[in-house]
C-alpha cells in the first residue's frame, strides 16, 4: 500500500499548515483506491476542512456533518475520501498517541511538521487493523510535467 500525490498537492498541504500555524490545519484527501481498498491510493484533490476544535491549538476535529456532506459530494464525482492530512506545529511528522487513539483503519493519515511557521517534512501513516498502532506507508510524490 502506498499513497500517491503530486508535488503541487503536497505543497498545498504544506502551505495550509504554515497558514494555520501555530494552530493545526486539517483536511481530507479525495481520490481513488485500487482494488477496492487493498491496493495503493491516489489523491486527486484536497478538501481543506474547518478545524472544529478552537479551544486548543494542538488538536483538530473534522465534524461528522462536514464529512457526510463531503462524502455525498465525492461519491457523485465517482471518487472517495482516501485519507486526511493535518499539521504538527513544532512537532515531528509522526502520529501522537492522540492521533493513534482516534484513527480509523484503512484511511491514510498524512502529517506535515511546521517548524516556527515553516513547513518541513511530511509522512503518511495507516492504522494497524488490530489497533492501537500506526505504520508508516510509502509516500509517492509525483512531479508534474
Amino acid at each position: 500500500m502506498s499513497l500517491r500525490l503530486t508535488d503541487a498537492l503536497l505543497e498545498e498541504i504544506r502551505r495550509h499548515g504554515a497558514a494555520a500555524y501555530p494552530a493545526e490545519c486539517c483536511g481530507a484527501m479525495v481520490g481513488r483506491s485500487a482494488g477496492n481498498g487493498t491496493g495503493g491510493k491516489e489523491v486527486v484533490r484536497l478538501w481543506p476542512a474547518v478545524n472544529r476544535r478552537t479551544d486548543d491549538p494542538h488538536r483538530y476535529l473534522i465534524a461528522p456533518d462536514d464529512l457526510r456532506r463531503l462524502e455525498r459530494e465525492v461519491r457523485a464525482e465517482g471518487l472517495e475520501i482516501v485519507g486526511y492530512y493535518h499539521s504538527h506545529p513544532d512537532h515531528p511528522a509522526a502520529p501522537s498517541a492522540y492521533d493513534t487513539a482516534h484513527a480509523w483503519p484503512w484511511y491514510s493519515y498524512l502529517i506535515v511538521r511546521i517548524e516556527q511557521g515553516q513547513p518541513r517534512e511530511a509522512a503518511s501513516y495507516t492504522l494497524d487493523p488490530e489497533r492501537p498502532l500506526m505504520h508508516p506507508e510509502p509516500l509517492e510524490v509525483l512531479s508534474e510535467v
Partner: protein
Amino acid sequence: MSVTVTIPTPLRGFTGGADAVELGGGTVGEVIDGLLAAHGGLKRHLMQDDGRLRNFVNLYLNDTDIRHLASTETPVQAGDVLTIVPSIAGGSPAVETELPKLSHAEVLRYSRHLLLPEVGVEGQRKLKAARVLTIGAGGLGSPLSLYLAAAGVGTIGIVDFDVVDLTNLQRQIVHGTSTLGKTKLESAKARLTDLNPNLKVESHDARLSAANALEIIREYDIVVDGTDNFPTRYLVNDACVLLDKPNVYGSIFRFEGQASVFYAKEGPCYRCLYSEPPPPGLVPSCAEGGVLGVLPGIIGSIQALETIKLIIGAGDSLIGRLVLFDALKLKFRELKLRKDPDCPLCGEHPTIHELIDYEAFCGIGAVPAYQGPEIVAEQLKDELSQKADDVILIDVREPHEWEIAHIEGARLIPLGQLPDRIPELDGHAEIVTYCHKGSRSMKALEILRGAGHSRVRSLAGGIDAWAARIEPGMARY
C-alpha cells in the same frame, strides 16, 4: 424488522467489503450488537473497552445523530437506515505531555465533574493547567473566584488594592466578618485556599493601569473582568485584544446585569459594542446607585461558567452574544453582537496599537467637575445652632436615602426635582446642600447658581462626614 446499516469505507475491510449490512433489532443498541456479532473485527474500532461507543464514532438514524435522540436506546423500524459516520480527530503530542496529572484525592474531589463526558479526566486536567486572572475581588470577583477555585482551576490571579469593608459583605461572599479591615487579596486567598488547597492564588496588590496591565495579563490564559468602572473596563478590553486573550465580561447595576465573552480572535470586543464610554457621571456606580446582593452572584456565576467552558472547550460560548438579566422580572434576554469592521482596536484597520490613558478617554479629570464653595460639617453645626432660620438646608438625595438618615431641619428635594422646585426657595436665602458623600450636592450647587442663587454652599463629604464627626449615633450606609 430489518434495518440497513451503512458501513463507511475504512470499515469495509471488516465486513468483507460490503458497504451495507441488513440487520434486525428493536433499538439502535440491538442493531449494533447484531452488527458486532456478525463482524467481530469491527468491535475494537467502534467500541471502547467499557462497551460504550468511541467518542469519534457517530451514528445517524436516517438523518439524525442518535445523540439528539435516545442514544442507543432509540427505537428503530423496518426500513430505517443507520449510518456510521466518522469524526476525524487528532493533534500533536504537546498537550499530552503538558497537562498535569490528577492525584487520587483530586479524582475524588472532582468526581462529579469526571462523570460528565464534556469534562472528564481530560477536561479536569485542563482546568488544573489553566491560569485565570480575575480583575477585582468584589461583587463579581467573589462568586466567580469561589466557583473557579471549587471547580479545580489550578491558578487564579487576583488584582485588587482594596480592604474589606462592612458595606461589602452584603454581596462579596468571598470575604467575611472575620476579615473586615484586611486586604481583599489576603481575605480572598484565605477563603479560596480553604475551599481548595490545590489552588495556587497569585496576588497582584495594585490598581490595574496602563503601566502594569500588559505585564500582569500576559501571564494568564483567560481574564475575567469584575470591575465596576469604565476606565478599567476599557483597559482590560484593550490589553486582552492586544495580547489575544479572551475577556469574560460581566457588569451589574441595581437589579440588572449583563455578561458576554469578548475575544477578538473569534468575535467582537467591548469596543465593538461600546465604542465610546458614557459621559462621566451619567452612569452611577453601585456605591451611588445600589445593587441587589444576589445579582453579582448570578452574573459572576455566569462568568465562572463561561470561563470553565472556554477551558474545557465544551458547549456554545457567549462569544458574540450579550446576555441581559433583569432580576425583578426574572428575565434573561440575549443580543447578538457583531464584530465592528471599523473598530479602532480589533477592526480591519486598527488605529490603537498600545494602551492609552483610560481616565482621560473616559473623560475623568479631562473636564474638571464644577467646584463650588463648601462648608465643613463642624461649621455647618455652628451655623445651624446660631442662625438656623437664616439657612435653608437642602437634602438632594432620594427619599429612600432620606429614610436611612437625614440631618434635623433639612428639606428633601431630590436632585432630579431641583430645577423645577427652585421657585420654592427664597432667592435671597443662604442655602446649604448636601447628599451622601458630596458629588450630587455639587451638581445641585451648579443648578442653583445657574438659577441666580449666589449664597450657596455644599456640605463637604456629605451626610457621611456629618454622621462620622457630628452625630456618631446616625446610621451610615
